[in-house]
């Protein structure tokens, strides 16, 4: 074989099990898994902020630190692989103090949302504030001078509130490792570190594909959807209705959760935002593209057809009732059928419509009109 041949990835070795002492209990661990993964499998609740199962561990948020015997320092469980004979402690006074003070520092670096009449996280749930509550972090520490200020970005979808950002870098890592777009990066240094595009240009003028994954992975709502913000709905909390459905664009079949305000649009309901299901649970693994996440304005567009239309004698279209429109359709199609036979009719169904609808169209063509002239539009 030529040396130019691409490298071969060896088949995974069979998994011998490792023995780890986890909070005093001996448990089996899988080679290659992290202490965090092991602990989660055994029902331990280790707090994390920068962790995402899809991303390489960063160990940057420091919330998941645990004790490992033989290590003088606390170590990040998200980035540390298990080892045979390891002795791990996930909860004790030292870890509790660490969590409290760390979260107190994070909160001190956040704006005073209450004073601004806002909810932390905006439309999203704020993982940071929930975690601070959970670990009992002091909330009375002096607030720090605000440093990171917002920038205008004329892109239509993504709003960044730098002051709420904790620099967990989930968004930049997602953008590089999963979306492989690398439109945003950590920028600056020290306390002035922030998230930015090259030259601070609008996302529209960057390599950004507007997938909105940065919003989905953000634990604080620093990256958030622009439309609720521009509509004055920042701080709007959980919607009343969440509907799991399948995206209506390409053939990947991404699952998505429509967050619906049922009372809006005179009771018709309105889609407020689209959120990807949790990573690892569906084919799209927590991801959506720009169309899936954002392109649903058309649902409520004023151009929607709301009533049947019939071509009048003068060539114009006029509104009609369903009964009238159906009668006219029966007359039209049956007229052709009678004059030219069933095979003078053609039925084009849609790869955009449901399976049930396509089934009914082909059944109608075959069983009611007597022709096999039926084809869905994306015939290949």
């Amino acid at each position, binding site marked *: 074989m030529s040396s130019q041949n691409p490298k071969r990835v060896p088949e995974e070795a069979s998994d011998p099990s490792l023995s780890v002492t986890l909070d005093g209990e001996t448990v089996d661990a899988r080679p290659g898994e992290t202490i965090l993964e092991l602990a989660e499998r055994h029902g331990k609740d280790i707090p994390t902020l920068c962790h995402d199962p899809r991303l390489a561990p960063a160990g940057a948020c420091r919330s998941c630190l645990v004790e490992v015997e033989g290590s003088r320092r606390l170590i990040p469980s998200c980035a540390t692989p298990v080892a045979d004979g390891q002795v791990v402690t996930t909860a004790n006074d030292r870890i509790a103090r660490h969590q409290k003070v760390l979260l107190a520092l994070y909160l001190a670096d956040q704006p005073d949302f209450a004073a601004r009449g806002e909810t932390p996280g905006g439309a999203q749930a704020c993982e940071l504030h929930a975690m601070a509550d959970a670990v009992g972090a002091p909330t009375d520490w002096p607030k720090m001078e605000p440093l990171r200020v917002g920038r205008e970005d004329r892109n239509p979808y993504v709003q960044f509130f730098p002051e709420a950002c904790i620099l967990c870098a989930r968004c930049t890592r997602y953008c590089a490792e999963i979306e492989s777009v690398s439109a945003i990066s950590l920028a600056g240094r020290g306390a002035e570190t922030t998230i930015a595009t090259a030259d601070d240009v609008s996302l529209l003028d960057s390599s950004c594909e507007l997938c909105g994954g940065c919003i989905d992975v953000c634990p604080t709502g620093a990256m958030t959807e622009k439309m609720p913000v521009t509509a004055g709905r920042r701080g709007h909390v959980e919607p009343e209705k969440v509907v799991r459905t399948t995206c209506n664009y390409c053939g990947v079949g991404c699952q998505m959760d429509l967050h619906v305000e049922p009372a809006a649009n005179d009771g018709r309901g309105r889609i407020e935002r689209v959120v990807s299901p949790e990573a690892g649970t569906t084919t799209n693994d927590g991801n959506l593209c720009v169309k899936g996440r954002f392109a649903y304005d058309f649902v409520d567009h004023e151009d929607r057809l709301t009533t049947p239309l019939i071509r009048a004698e003068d060539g114009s279209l006029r509104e009609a009732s369903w009964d009238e429109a159906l009668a*006219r359709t029966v007359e039209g199609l049956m007229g052709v059928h009678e004059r030219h036979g069933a095979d003078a009719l053609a039925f084009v169904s849609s790869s955009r419509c449901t399976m049930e609808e396509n089934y009914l169209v082909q059944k109608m063509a075959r069983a009611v009109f007597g022709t096999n002239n039926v*084809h869905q539009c994306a015939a290949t």
Partner: protein
Amino acid sequence: MAGLVTTFGAGAMTNSIGEIRDADVLFVIGSNTTEAHPIIAMEMKRAVHRGATLIVADPRSINLTSFASRHLKLRPGTDVWLLNAMAHVICAEGLVDADFIETNTEGFDAVRETVARYTPEEAEKVTGVPADDIRWAARAYATTPKAGIYYTLGITEHTHGTDNVYGLANLVLMTGHLGKPSAGMNPLRGQNNVQGANDAGATPIFYPGYQRVDDPEVAARYEKSWGVPLPREPGLNLNVMMKETGRSIRGMFVMGEDIVLSEPNAGALEERMNGLEFLVIQEIFLNETARFADVILPGACFAEKDGVFTNSERRVQRVRKAVEPPGQAKADWEAVLALANAVAEKRGLTPWRYDGPAAIYAEMAKDADKFAGISHDRVDREGGLQWPCTSPEHPGTRFLHEGGVLRGKGLFTAIEYRPSVELADPEYPLVLSTGRTLYHYNAATQTRRGVGLAEKQPVAFCEIHPADARARSIEQGDLVEVETRRGKVACRAMVSRQVRRGCIWMPLHFAEARANLLTVDDGDIVTQTAEYKVCAAKVTRVAEQPAERDAFPGSFYAVAGPEQGTIH
């Protein structure tokens, strides 16, 4: 799809999207995956980050090529040469899986004899791909167990589209990359429910579940089930229907498709549309086709109705009603049901009774083994099921052909190169291909009505190579006229090395610059799918007023091409 059914016995992705990230070699051909299937492209790029080898065969430099180990930048329409030459290398170097061929296939000898004439050196002359790259790609593909093929319309939208599919299938069969994870042959579906519409029998030759209409046993079963006599001759393919429009076809029902914008050689189609005696369409927006309609029925969009979509990997998933349709608009199934029953009444047939999409699905599944184990209830509970799923206990099928090809024996098909029907000539010296972009969708009736996507990509454009642009005094952003024997449209020039010299490329989404006024409507000999990817064209610069020029927003799209960032 026809090619796949012929070869393997099932027309769908053999493998699953979730397996892509574990692949070791990905051979992507005729698919601008990043723009057409962004989430699948993400998975491919994850595989590359993990160390997988990506081979991209495409006439254009697309986003994926910047992640690829090799880019086989072939001349449009020369796929058969490329694929046969790869097969040549695999046979010549003894990289075939002889056991698999012996046990699971038939027809290999004819293919081996044919491809013997397709040497990489000759292929280089026709395709423009260096012979060494062809050899390298063939070896990489053949010698890696987890090697999968992924393709879309760049393969099928040709007059030799089925040949292309056979060419790919030959590679799969001779290497035995079938019936195992992260391998196989994977057509990526362009619409949310292409797979489901095919599965549901919305084709002129198949009842649901790929059961042929001309199979007497099948027809008899459906006659019994539906209680009416049924036509036994296959009907007309879409492309033939379009050509027969106004001729033998005099009445038409169109649901959820803008045929006038989407079908090829649209100018000629428009003329024939006037010959229809009756046209009814079911739509959510007025579209180009509506200009010819006698009746327009208001439909519901995906968020306003219940049902299932089947994705590219054969996964049946639920669509759920979240909001009400506007005004008197109805879910399409309700409208079709009402229409069918109105006709049934007039013809004295028994009316249909369904209390909802779940009942419709149940009826379909009852007569089609592949879906017999699938129901709305199960999908609700389990979150999605991949057919074949033959009983309520069957867990669904992640990848096809495990332990043997569904058809019994995988069928090799020897193919010979046939040029595209319309080649560049002195009068029309450029080759036009059409395709999609990330920011719009098909006729863009949905995406151009959003506040955001129109901003990212506001105007129609045509990619042209810098050398071809220079020869025509065309600069970036100039207004140009693209003309073929069938029509002409005006759009902006995007001067880019993404296209080969001598080739141009246009997106199909823009109503004001309809690429399909330009395309040819000659179809593949088997599927009749039109050759959207190759026709002869010329481009000229159009003089314009400075004010118009100033209004030009200056950006086309920002899916970064290979020129911007190749290290990831």
